[in-house]
């Protein structure tokens, strides 16, 4: 073997040392498999196995606080309960209402903010503001909830004081069931309007200035230029925002948990908050799992839509 190693031509070395028929199989390159396998195995163990576990639990009677009942199979009983549970449906419809109160506003205002910051002559100021936009996105949602508790306080909150300056009498923003939904929507908008604005800004900056110049020859109306020239560049990003925000609203838990715990009553009980309560306050794991699986179906539809729209061609 040592003679073969001294051979100056490595190609000759290979053919000499390896009889072709015996070595053909190991020559299949396993490196990519070995590189990907650990990540995939871990993801399956922590991301897929638990989902099947939840699927199994959803067909069981599983009351954590009543271990003497055991965990008997109950077929589709949990799903029947979940689908007949008015609180589950109302939490879903509240989530839908929350979506309507937040996402359209955030998209319209986000685009407006992006247009403002990209077109203004106050370049330095808009540059600073662009960095500021990152702050709400990064702020821990739990802490956002705590700040809300302080700012929306009926008696000494900054919000009521500011409204008082323009003559609006104090409102119990967190304690009044008709105001609470608006309050969490406003809080969500504070945190995620900047995200929409940043996405819209990256769309707007991808429009070449030449195109804008050219369209100025046609019309002087900024609205027309926006509608016919800039908006087409924005649409992919805004579609992404729409889907991601929908998924995030289905996930939304922390900010609401701290701010209102779903209350007063059930006024701000969005679906994640409700399922968490069924699972970890009532400890009815079977029912909560069934609800979670129904939620998962919804998440999956969103994921598939997102993938279809944005990663149609996968570049290798």
């Amino acid at each position, binding site marked *: 073997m040592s003679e073969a190693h001294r051979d100056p031509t490595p190609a000759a070395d290979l053919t000499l040392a390896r009889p072709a028929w015996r070595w053909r199989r190991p020559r299949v390159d396993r490196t990519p498999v070995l590189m990907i396998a650990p990540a995939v195995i871990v993801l399956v163990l922590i991301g897929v196995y638990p989902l099947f576990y939840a699927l199994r639990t959803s067909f069981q009677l599983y009351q954590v606080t009543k271990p003497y009942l055991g965990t008997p199979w109950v077929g589709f009983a949990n799903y029947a309960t979940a689908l007949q549970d008015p609180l589950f449906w109302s939490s879903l419809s509240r989530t839908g209402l929350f979506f309507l109160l937040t996402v359209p506003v955030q998209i319209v205002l986000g685009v407006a903010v992006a247009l403002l910051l990209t077109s203004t002559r106050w370049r330095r100021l808009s540059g600073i503001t662009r*960095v500021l936009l990152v702050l709400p996105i990064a702020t821990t949602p739990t802490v956002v909830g705590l700040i809300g508790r302080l700012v929306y306080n009926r008696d000494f909150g900054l919000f009521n004081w500011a409204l008082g300056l323009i003559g609006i009498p104090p409102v119990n923003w967190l304690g009044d069931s008709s105001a609470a939904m608006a309050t969490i929507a406003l809080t969500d908008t504070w945190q995620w309007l900047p995200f929409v604005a940043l996405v819209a800004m990256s769309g707007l900056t991808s429009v070449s200035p030449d195109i804008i110049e050219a369209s100025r020859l046609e019309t002087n109306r900024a609205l027309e230029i926006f509608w016919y020239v800039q908006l087409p560049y924005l649409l992919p990003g805004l579609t992404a925002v729409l889907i991601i925000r929908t998924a995030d609203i289905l996930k939304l*838990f922390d900010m609401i948990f701290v701010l209102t715990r779903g209350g007063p009553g059930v006024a701000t009980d969005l679906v994640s908050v409700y399922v*968490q309560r069924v699972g970890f306050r009532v400890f009815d794991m079977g029912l909560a799992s069934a609800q979670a699986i129904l939620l998962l179906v919804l998440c*999956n539809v969103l994921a598939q839509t997102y*993938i279809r729209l944005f990663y149609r061609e996968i570049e290798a």
Partner: protein
Amino acid sequence: MSASSATVSSSPRPSQRSRRRWRISLADIAQLVAILLLAVFILVPIYWMASTSLKTGNQTFAIPPVFIFEPTFEHYREVFAEGVVTKGLRNSLIVATGSTLLALLLGTPAAYAMARFDFRGKASLWFWIISNRFISPIVVALPFFLLARDFSLLDTHLVLILTYLTFNIPLVIWLCIDQFRAIPREIDQAALVDGANQWEALRTIVLPLAIPGIVVAAILCFVFSWNEFLFALVLTRAEAKTAPVEAANFMTGFGIRWGAMMATGTLIVLPVVVFAAIVSRHLVRGLTMGAVK
């Protein structure tokens, strides 16, 4: 002829432009006001948290609100002396760092392989990894709780580190695939010709070049792990409670200690806000899994 007309038409332009620069129209003022209002809208809640953490109780409850005051660090002293929040911050640091490192260890080779090799099922694998972004944590939290209980992993750092991998691994893979693709194949092929195997090429040649992308991925993983609340709430009891869970605890019990609560909030938010500002240009890419660049 054409040359002279060019000089004639170009000479008035600079003066016109400079004159326009100094004339401020009504629309400009409106824009200035709008930008300032936006900045105030963003900053006021954060400023109010930070300032309340430095106020005495009377100043906190004052009407009209106190904007200028002599700061006191009493609440920070209180928070550090009690140790609960300090422990929460330490737990958050351990969990976020652990999960980030593990995600990088598992994610970068996978990303490298997906950027460099073609194999059957690659597209499906890719879509599956992306789709993890959309799964609601509550769906995974229920079975995680039951499984962690069965393996007696409740209230440990390990269970949170593993749980956070559900969003950190996809994030690392996505961001690093992008980064590896930006590095020309020829560079690692040169290393292969020199006798290195794929692992050595990755470790010694490609990874050092990919550091910028890997740092962005690491920071985003850290930020998302640090901010996570639902898993930490249901999977910990006392020993492994992270800082956001401790902070939320201020809302329970009798008599809210606003100063201490806001001091805690400030301590939690400070590191992530700094990190996010550093990678601000990549934050959107991380949040949209690369659909928006």
